[in-house]
């Protein structure tokens, strides 16, 4: 029981400033999306550089259809590439993380650091040998070649996320399972895997987003329009003879849609993946 009457909410002028700044920044981040939407709804004749900010004359989705017609094959390519690559690199990352967090051996921390280095390198520094190797393996210019590439260069980040994730599982749980006679695989199956659901979601979202958005490998490893992923196809629309901004903006929005949906629906896990790579676990 308080004796004093509850304090009336006082008006702080600083609050007004805080909200104004926050709204201004929200506008800054949303502006390009707004522009993509209104430009995508315009017809080619309507897209006029000096009237960029005018609203479209009506709700029209012709440009989106046109963009979809152009992007559809590469959209499917991206799906065919992203799904297996995400699954495989998540499984590898889980096993590596399990070993490096719970079955440490002499030099395992150094080994982990050496693996981590692989996620920071500019991929230009491995591109020439990569192309030559894929050519020799008969995988150059194909989706399996892209999958292999993404799985291999995904090892560092998936290993990092799972290692940090598993480090939080109490060692006593493992000890108890060991006493029960469980070995390396038994513990993995009975203790680690049942606790891994969140870890898999975080890693899968991370890999899905980065592989879907990736550009350099897609550009260099594919040589025919039939095999290229959607980011390369989008860049190609931009490079055509005269720029149809309405189709291009509609296309950009289509390419952004899958990862944007994942972000909106599973943002919490997306954020965890984002922070996992940057903060010490």
């Amino acid at each position, binding site marked *: 029981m308080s004796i004093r009457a509850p304090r009336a909410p006082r008006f702080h002028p600083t609050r007004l400033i805080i909200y104004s700044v926050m709204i201004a920044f929200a506008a800054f981040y949303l502006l390009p999306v707004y522009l993509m939407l209104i430009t995508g709804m315009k017809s080619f004749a309507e897209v006029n*550089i000096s009237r960029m900010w005018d609203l479209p004359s009506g709700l029209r989705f012709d440009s989106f259809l046109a963009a979809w017609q152009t992007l559809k094959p590469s959209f499917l390519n991206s799906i065919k590439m992203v799904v297996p690559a995400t699954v495989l690199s998540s499984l590898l990352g889980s096993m590596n993380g399990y070993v490096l967090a719970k079955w440490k051996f002499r030099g395992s921390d150094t080994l982990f650091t050496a693996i981590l280095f692989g996620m920071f390198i*500019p991929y230009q520094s491995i591109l020439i040998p990569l192309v030559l190797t894929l050519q020799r393996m008969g995988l150059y210019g194909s989706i399996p070649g892209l999958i292999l590439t993404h799985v291999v260069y995904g090892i560092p980040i998936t290993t990092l996320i799972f290692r940090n994730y598993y480090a939080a599982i109490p060692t006593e749980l493992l000890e108890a399972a060991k006493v029960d006679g469980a070995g390396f695989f038994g513990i993995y199956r009975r203790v680690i895997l049942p606790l891994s659901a969140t870890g898999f979601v975080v890693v899968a979202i991370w890999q899905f987003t980065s592989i879907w*958005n990736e550009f350099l490998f897609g550009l260099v490893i594919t040589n025919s329009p039939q095999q290229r992923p959607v980011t390369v196809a989008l860049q190609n629309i931009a490079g055509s003879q005269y720029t149809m901004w309405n189709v291009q903006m509609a296309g950009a929005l289509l390419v952004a849609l899958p990862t944007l949906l994942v972000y909106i629906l599973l943002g919490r896990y997306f954020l965890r993946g984002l922070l996992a790579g940057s903060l010490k676990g």
Partner: protein
Amino acid sequence: MTGKVIEEARPRPGVATRPMAARSRYRLVERLIPILMITPSIIAIAVFVYGFIGWTTVVSVSRWQGIVPDLSFAGFRNYAALLTSYRFQSDIRNTIVFTVFFLIGSLSIGLLLAVLLDSKVRGESFFRTVYLFPMALSFVVTGTVWQWLFTPGAPGQPTGLNLLFEQIGLPVFQTWSTVSHVWPGGGWKPEWLRVPFGVPLAMIPVIIAAIWQMSGFTMAMYLAGLRAIPDELREAARVDGASEWQVFRWITFPLLQPVTLSAVIVLGHISLKIFDLIMTQTGGGPGFATDVPGIFMYETTFKSNKYAEGAAVAIVMLLMVSVLIVPYLIWRLRTETER
């Protein structure tokens, strides 16, 4: 304790009690299994990262400047040629300019937004979601949109953002994306330097686009850092009569140093090897004003088939990133083993 002993002593169905020798062999196998299980990944990284870097290094000192491979040793002439080339000097200047402004912009905006979001505001999760969503997009999408936003119009007829600037009474920065001017340029410079030193104006739209995409990320990092600071710490300072600014300056800010370090590492390595964004937004133009080593390497190697030169550019890129990353990784390893 005793429970454990009893568990071990009691024979269980399916687990045969082993003689000592077999038991120690089992222990050895048990120690080998984990190593065996990560061997495929180790081999993959050893070959695809370290082996390929070695291979690229060999190419970079070779005479392979055409379609037919020629790995005969050429010394460091490819590197020497790079250092004196106009394009590569522009690339290095542009990378420095891009990295410095991109880092300053992303860190300060990220910190500002995190502090605002942390001040008990309404709709925090909505704002956070809006600030962070560009991180989910491809640099290719970002480049495409911002290219349209900065489309140059005819002289006197501002478009895109310039039009918006004009409508709200700000000066028009129309020429940003069309001129290769470097500000301030001119002045004294050493003889070997072939490019004017300063900020290429065409770089500004690219930097803005990059900050648009990545500042939400620093916001998220700083926000996580802020939430990790115990409230009592700040509360105690307030009780002692510290102003909000003093609390921030002397308590919050110093405790955020590790976050700043992480952010510099992550953003720094991204900006030193930036490729996708600039390739789609400007393609490196006009006149190499926004060109970077990543684009140079790609075009030299895969468009002009000058493999040795491209490899040399790639190795310089790797060295630039390594100067930042390797000390960080070693420090991380040291602190981890100390724990």
